[in-house]
């Protein structure tokens, strides 16, 4: 009975306000001016400066030279390493994070272990940055715990210098990608109902068939969507790499930072803008795909 009452009364309240024309319709908009003004100053203007600046010559006219400067081999190398780094860590993060989310969901719902893991994941996903770099230098460099252990127990002596390279970054980035995956993927796995599994079993389906025909197709959009989010996340990460690598700028965010802080070569400020534009375009495409996948997820698992 309660459901029928709810369906009979769709919220009609706010529509009535709209009947007023002209001034009465515009006046309420004024209430949103402070917010949109603030966002314009601190989000839209900086973005516009980047986009317009990418096409502006030092004299003020239109130019494509900043964009063609992106064809420089060091820049292309940086984009390639950034994409590889982000793709590899997105896959690693998605696989292990997905596994961890599934395992968490099959446990008891309000259990302590689940709370501990989700809290730890929120901290590590949001809060890594510079501190993460130190966590790994304390682990793998000379005098690090694992480094010491390797030397004492197995006689393997390394300096841990591989941490300063792009493959080293893959290891470090996984440390915040896996937790992020748990945070974004857990709600989708939570949406899987045990009745669906029972239904599949009742109809004679094996575990494999259940995953292949029911759970797999349902979770796939959420899984790949989360993977895209992970890609965007590591593509834009700067702090960890900066704290680890000081001699070169192997990834795009570091190239941008290098171009901003380069005071010797004046033209580099414009290069920063075109690099930034290139980054925005890639991230925007990825996030657009993510939003599309997210929509098809919420249909079943929202």
């Amino acid at each position, binding site marked *: 009975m309660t459901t029928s009452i709810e369906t009979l009364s769709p919220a009609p309240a706010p529509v009535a306000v709209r009947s007023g024309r002209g001034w009465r319709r515009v006046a309420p908009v004024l*209430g949103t001016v402070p917010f949109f003004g603030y966002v314009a100053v601190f989000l839209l203007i900086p973005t516009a400066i980047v986009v317009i600046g990418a096409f502006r010559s030092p004299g003020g006219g239109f130019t494509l030279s900043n964009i063609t400067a992106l064809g420089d081999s060091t820049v292309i190398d940086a984009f390639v390493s950034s994409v590889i780094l982000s793709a590899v860590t997105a896959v690693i993060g998605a696989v292990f994070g997905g596994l961890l989310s599934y395992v968490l969901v099959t446990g008891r719902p309000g259990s302590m272990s689940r709370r501990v893991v989700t809290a730890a994941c929120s901290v590590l996903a949001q809060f890594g940055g510079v501190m993460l770099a130190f966590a790994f230098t304390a682990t793998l460099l000379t005098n690090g715990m694992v480094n010491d252990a390797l030397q004492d127990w197995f006689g393997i002596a390394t300096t841990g210098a591989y941490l300063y390279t792009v493959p080293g970054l893959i290891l470090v980035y996984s440390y915040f990608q896996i937790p992020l995956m748990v945070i974004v993927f857990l709600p989708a796995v939570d949406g899987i109902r045990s009745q669906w599994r029972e239904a599949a079993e009742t109809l004679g389906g094996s575990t494999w068939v259940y995953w292949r025909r029911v759970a797999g197709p349902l979770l796939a959009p959420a899984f790949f969507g989360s993977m895209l989010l992970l890609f965007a996340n590591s593509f834009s990460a700067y702090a960890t790499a900066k704290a680890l690598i000081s001699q070169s700028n192997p990834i795009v965010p570091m190239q*941008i930072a290098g171009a901003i802080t380069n005071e010797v070569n004046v033209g580099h400020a414009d290069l920063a803008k075109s690099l930034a534009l290139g980054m925005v375009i890639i991230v925007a495409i990825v996030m657009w795909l993510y939003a599309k996948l997210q929509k098809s997820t919420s249909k079943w698992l929202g």
Partner: protein
Amino acid sequence: MTPSAPAAPSLSRTPATPPGSSLSESHPRPQQMRRGMRRKQATTRRIVIGVIMAFFLIPLTSMLYFSVRYPLSGKWTGHSWSDLIHIQALAAEDPADYGQLWDGLKNSAVLVVLTVVLMLVLLIPTMTWIRLRVRWLSRTLEFVCLLPLTIPAIVLVVGLGPVYRIVSSVLSTNSIWLCFIYVILVLPFAYRALDAGLGAIDLPTLSEAARSLGAGWLRILWRIVLPNIRSAVVSACFISVALVLGEFTIAQLLARNNLQTGIYLVSQSDGQLAVTMSLAALLLAFVLLMVLSLLSGDRKSQEGS
């Protein structure tokens, strides 16, 4: 008007239940299968959690190991932890090496408060107002709030130079004014949390009731909206705190000073203290989140019963 209409589906639903229950009784096999599977699942669960936890715990343990040991002699020591507690005195003694860290610590504390307050003051009235009076703007609001997800901090900082030049001349070059851009960074997360909170209450009815009793808009926000979305506000605040305490990119590139740039600088003269500080910050954030999770979990179970 049509009392038979809502009754019809419930009538048609009743005969569907008996066959379902008799079906599961006549097939005991799946249940046995499930019991075996459960056991296997439990083992897999332990292995997966164990392996992944090891990956996460080893670097944290290494930080602890690094923080309590002299790297060259290998002797145990607690001096970096006592340095951390006495960071203020240390900064006064040796400002060249430790001044930045202490300064950054103070700035970050102020930044957390400013960012959270500014975020709430900007978002809650606007979101409430749009839900009540200008519904057609809600899609625009959502788009704008989620926009920072597609514009990484490192990109934003490129365009922020001119904006912060104006901020510096109007206000000052003080690091605490980073709060303006931090509000933008937390916008997507805070928006999502608050949107879920506002969506769960019947805002039009509540505000109509309050207004008919003579309450003004401020009173409605303060006495009606805020108490009703308290848990959403708490989670929006928490994510903002975590983000602000962890922010490095913008602070470093605008040549400002916060906790992270402080740790970064101190790592070049005293690596041990940098590691100790990082571990302390991570643990503190973890404890805070754990407390929040327990508090909100208790609330939920109370509401359920």
